């Protein structure tokens, strides 16, 4: 009985704050306005050097300003479902951005807007910062003002191997010894590359394909995220395209596991990255493509995926810098 009273006493102590004050006002929570206000210097960097990528009035994702004359890096798979893009930097809207090129390995696109005197991001010297280090990224946005979310570096830099097998994302039917596309998955590389229903596949990577087994053989050892060259026939014309192989789990979202089901929105393309840093900024799934900043406002990387409810990935600055320089060089060639 004595023990019982003691036990009650102890559990009672935990009840006491309940009586006084139960719940922390949302402004003081980690994503709340009062906490976020402490990051105003970093917010100003987002205001100048992050971009909002729009299709009409719909915000697709964010981007990083990497040149004064309007080169913007963003997450490719978030924008390739549209064919025209407007870009907002600071309070100015730049219409009709040009898509210069994409990099399927990192899922990054390079856009160009007609602008001058923009302020490109300043790269941080290294992404090798200890876990617990503050990081800042784009939160929601208004037409003129960038908002932010803050979090911390939460795990070691590493590769995220592709999840599930690699696939074109098409349903094929055999028609007089040829393979005709009967349907395409909305999130497939085939759809992104412009393939359509009724197209006849002729070759993949230079090898003739006449039956389904031919395709299985060619794709067997390929990774999601890599591309294959496909030659196909549409009507009388023979066309070709570089098609990104997507992972099955990315295209067929009904194959969600328990953790996916509790995660709300997540990026469709969230695996198959050579190297990522991980942090705990967990906004909407569209909060990708923009810069990850340190407290000095320098760019530590690019937010590339909201993987699930508890994990966000960014391309580390070393890789991002190399990629940006290579894409700039190749696009001006």
């Amino acid at each position, binding site marked *: 009985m004595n023990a019982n009273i003691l036990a*009650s006493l102890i559990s009672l*102590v935990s009840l006491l704050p309940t009586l006084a004050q*139960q719940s922390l006002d949302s402004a003081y929570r980690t994503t709340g306005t*009062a906490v976020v206000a402490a990051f105003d210097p970093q917010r100003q960097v987002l205001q100048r050097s992050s971009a909002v990528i729009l299709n009409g009035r719909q915000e697709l994702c964010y981007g990083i300003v990497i040149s004064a004359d309007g080169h913007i890096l963003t997450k490719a798979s978030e924008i390739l479902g549209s064919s025209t893009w407007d870009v907002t930097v600071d309070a100015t809207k730049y219409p009709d951005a040009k898509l210069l090129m994409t990099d399927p390995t990192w899922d990054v696109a390079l856009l160009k807007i007609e602008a001058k005197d923009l302020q490109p991001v300043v790269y941080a010297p290294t992404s090798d910062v200890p876990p617990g*280090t503050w990081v800042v990224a784009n939160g929601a946005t208004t037409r003129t003002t960038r908002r932010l979310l803050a979090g911390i*570096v939460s795990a*070691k830099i590493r590769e995220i191997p592709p999840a599930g097998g690699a696939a074109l994302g098409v349903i094929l039917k055999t028609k007089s010894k040829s393979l005709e596309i009967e349907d395409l998955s909305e999130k497939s590389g085939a759809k992104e590359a412009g393939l359509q229903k009724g197209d006849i596949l002729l070759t993949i990577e230079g090898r003739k394909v006449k039956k389904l087994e031919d395709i299985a053989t060619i794709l067997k050892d390929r990774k999601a995220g890599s591309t294959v060259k496909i030659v196909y026939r549409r009507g009388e014309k023979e066309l070709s395209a570089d098609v990104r192989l997507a992972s099955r789990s990315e295209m067929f979202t009904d194959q969600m596991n328990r*953790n996916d089901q509790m995660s709300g929105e997540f990026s469709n393309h969230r695996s198959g990255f050579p190297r990522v840093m991980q942090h705990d900024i*967990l906004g909407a799934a569209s909060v990708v493509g923009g810069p990850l900043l340190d407290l000095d406002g320098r760019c530590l990387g690019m937010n590339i995926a909201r993987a699930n409810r508890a994990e966000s990935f960014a391309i580390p600055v070393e890789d991002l810098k190399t990629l940006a320089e290579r894409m700039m060089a190749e696009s001006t060639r």
Partner: protein
Amino acid sequence: MSLNFMMNLVWISAMIVFLPWCAFALEDRPYVNDLKAPENRKDLEALQNAVSSALPKARAATVCIEIKDGSGSGVIISADGLILTAAHVATGVKQKVTVILEDGTRLKAETLGLVADSDAAMIQITEKGTYPFVEIDRTDSTRLGDWVFALGHSGGYDKDRGAVLRLGRLVRIAGTTFQSDCMLIGGDSGGPLFDLTGKLVGIHSRVGQQMQVNMHVPMAEFVSHWDGMRNAEFIGEGPYAEKPKKGNGFLGLATEPGAAGGLKVTKVGRKSPAEAAGIKEGDVLFKMNGVALKDRGQMQDLLEEMSAGNEVTLETERGGKPKTFSLALGER
């Protein structure tokens, strides 16, 4: 349960008088906890520095727990390997589990007791050793709005990634639950929530439909059931663990009194635990779990006290030679 609750109510009125008593200031309490929000870079760096100095010890003590169909997390709180975790990770008492340390070392362990209605549980590493551990907050010093950090093996153990770190605040305190805005996911369950000094203040339990709702079992809940849990008791009625039903165990054999004492097996059920263990018709059972078997009724009584999954050792004779069988009871 309802009696306990009533007593709480009675004691609340008695305790309110002593409230100022509890409001003592802790010397090592970081000043940022007493700001409504960090205001500038100095405050942010104070937070960041507190986390990074507490992190190495906290990380070393955080473990992954492998159970039958999945994995959870836990945290070591003594050098000899006592672990706190969630009841829904332990699933039951005296279950064999595997504990994985941050560096990948795999260790044998056994679940001790649990509190089924608040999601608290203990596990003991059964391999001898000196393990990294953290201190627990026995004084319930955490307050609403305090900054906390979570560790856990989100989605399972991943050596290249390590345990995942998340920062947040204690946003709600209600009964036997802390709520924080440290984002949790499957695999984190049973993992530790720390204050800025690296003291263990909670164990991850569950998440809500809304993204920002993450629940933890406060240390006070562990402290109040400490001895029962250490003694491998199944406390409470659920919902976080299902109490094993007594008498639902099943051996799968029929017996008659043996000519020279004991019980002679007259029939072994097909695909029964007895058959799987290798018991055959004609074997004579003398002892079950060390207790001499006198007649069928007594053996039935012994089985009635056990549950499906319990280990049974049978000492028998076959053709005059002693033979010992070990098996787990099936579910009837």
